[in-house]
C-alpha cells in the first residue's frame, strides 16, 4: 500500500507517474535521454547497468529489477549475471572503463563529495571521456532521486522477478516516454 491514494494499480514509479503527469513528463524525458538516446558512446546496456547498481545500493527493489532486466536485455545476460555484477562488479567481466565508472557511481550514491580526483583519473586512464564521466554522475544522481521517489511514497512492486524480465523487451522497444500509459 502506497502512503498516498494513487487511484491506480500500476506498480512502482508508474503509479506515481499516473498520479502526477505534470512531473512524470520531465522525469520520463530525463530517463529517455540518459538511458536510451543513442547519441552516446556508452551503450544502453552500460547505462542501464549504472542505474541498476545505484538502485541496488539504495536497496530499491522495483528500480533494480526494472533496470536490471533492461541491462540484461541489452547486454544479453541473465538475471543471475546481473546480480553477480551488482554484488561485486570489480570481479565481473567488465571493461576497465566500466569498472571505473561504476566506482564513481557508487561514490555519487553516498553523496556528491565522495567522488575523488583519483577515481576520475582512473576513469580517464581507462579512456573515459568527459561526457561519459558526466553521464555516469548524472545517471547515478538521477537514480538517487528515482529510488527515493519510489520508496519514499511506499509504492508496491511485483515480487516475482520474472515480471520485470518479461517486460524488458517491450520497454526497450517503446522507451520511457510511454511508460505512464502501459
Amino acid at each position, binding site marked *: 500500500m502506497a*502512503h498516498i491514494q494513487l487511484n491506480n494499480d500500476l506498480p512502482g514509479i508508474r503509479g506515481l507517474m499516473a498520479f502526477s503527469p505534470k512531473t512524470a513528463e520531465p522525469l520520463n524525458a530525463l530517463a529517455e535521454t540518459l538511458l536510451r538516446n543513442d547519441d552516446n558512446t556508452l551503450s544502453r546496456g552500460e547505462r542501464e547497468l549504472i542505474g541498476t547498481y545505484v538502485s541496488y545500493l539504495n536497496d530499491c527493489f522495483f528500480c533494480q529489477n526494472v533496470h536490471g532486466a533492461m541491462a540484461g536485455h541489452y547486454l544479453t545476460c541473465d538475471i543471475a549475471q546481473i546480480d553477480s555484477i551488482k554484488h561485486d562488479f570489480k570481479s565481473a567481466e567488465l571493461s576497465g572503463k566500466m569498472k571505473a565508472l561504476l566506482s564513481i557511481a557508487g561514490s555519487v550514491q553516498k553523496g556528491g563529495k565522495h567522488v575523488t580526483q583519483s577515481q*576520475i583519473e582512473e576513469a580517464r586512464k581507462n579512456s573515459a571521456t568527459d561526457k561519459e564521466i*558526466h*553521464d555516469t554522475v548524472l545517471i547515478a*544522481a538521477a537514480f538517487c*532521486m528515482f529510488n*527515493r521517489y519510489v*520508496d*519514499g511514497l511506499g509504492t508496491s512492486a511485483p515480487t516475482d522477478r520474472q515480471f520485470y524480465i518479461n517486460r524488458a523487451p517491450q520497454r526497450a522497444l517503446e522507451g520511457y516516454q510511454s511508460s505512464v500509459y502501459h
Partner: protein
Amino acid sequence: MPHINLTNEYPGIRSLFIYRPETAAPMNALVQAMLHNPHPSLSAGERELIATYVSRLNTCKYCCNIHGAIAKHQLGNNGDIVQQVLSDPETAPISSKMKALLKIAAKVQSGGKNVLPADIELARSEGATDIELHDAVLIAAAFCMYNRYVDGLATWQPDDAELYDKMGEQRAREGYLTPPFKVATGDSQ
C-alpha cells in the same frame, strides 16, 4: 577545479546545463513544475524551503544558497524565515503542516524507506493532502539528484551572498526556463 571541462562563466548546475543541454531541458522542466508553477495549496516559497532544507542536509553549497535566495524572494524578501528553517525547522515561524512535510523531506534525504506511516499520519493530522505529500517527497528526492550532480562533478560554487541573491531574485521572478546571466570570474579575464 571541476572534474570535467566546464565553462567558468556560470556557477554550479548552470555550468552543467550549458555543458549538456539535452539533459538540462528535462531537469529545468522538472524544477519548474515542482517549484515555480502554480500549486493547489503550497506556495512557491514553501516549496523552495523544502528544496533549500534538503540541499543543506546534503551539504550542497550552491543549491542551498541559490534556493535559499529564491525562497527569500518568494517569501516577500524574508530571509529570516529561510535561516530559521535551516537552523531548526521545529522552532521556525512556519505552519505545523510545513514542519511535518520538512520532517518527511529529511527522511527522504536519508533514504526513501526511512519515511514511515507515522510520518505520513503526522502530516495528515496537520492537514497535508495527498498532493502535498507526493510533492514534498518528490522535491526532496529530486534535490538528492541535483545536489549530487552539482557536487559529484565538483562544479564551481562561489562564496558570494550578493551574487546568489541576484540570481535568486531572477529565478523567483522568471522561473527556471530563462537563460542565466553571465558571472565574471577572476580566472576568465
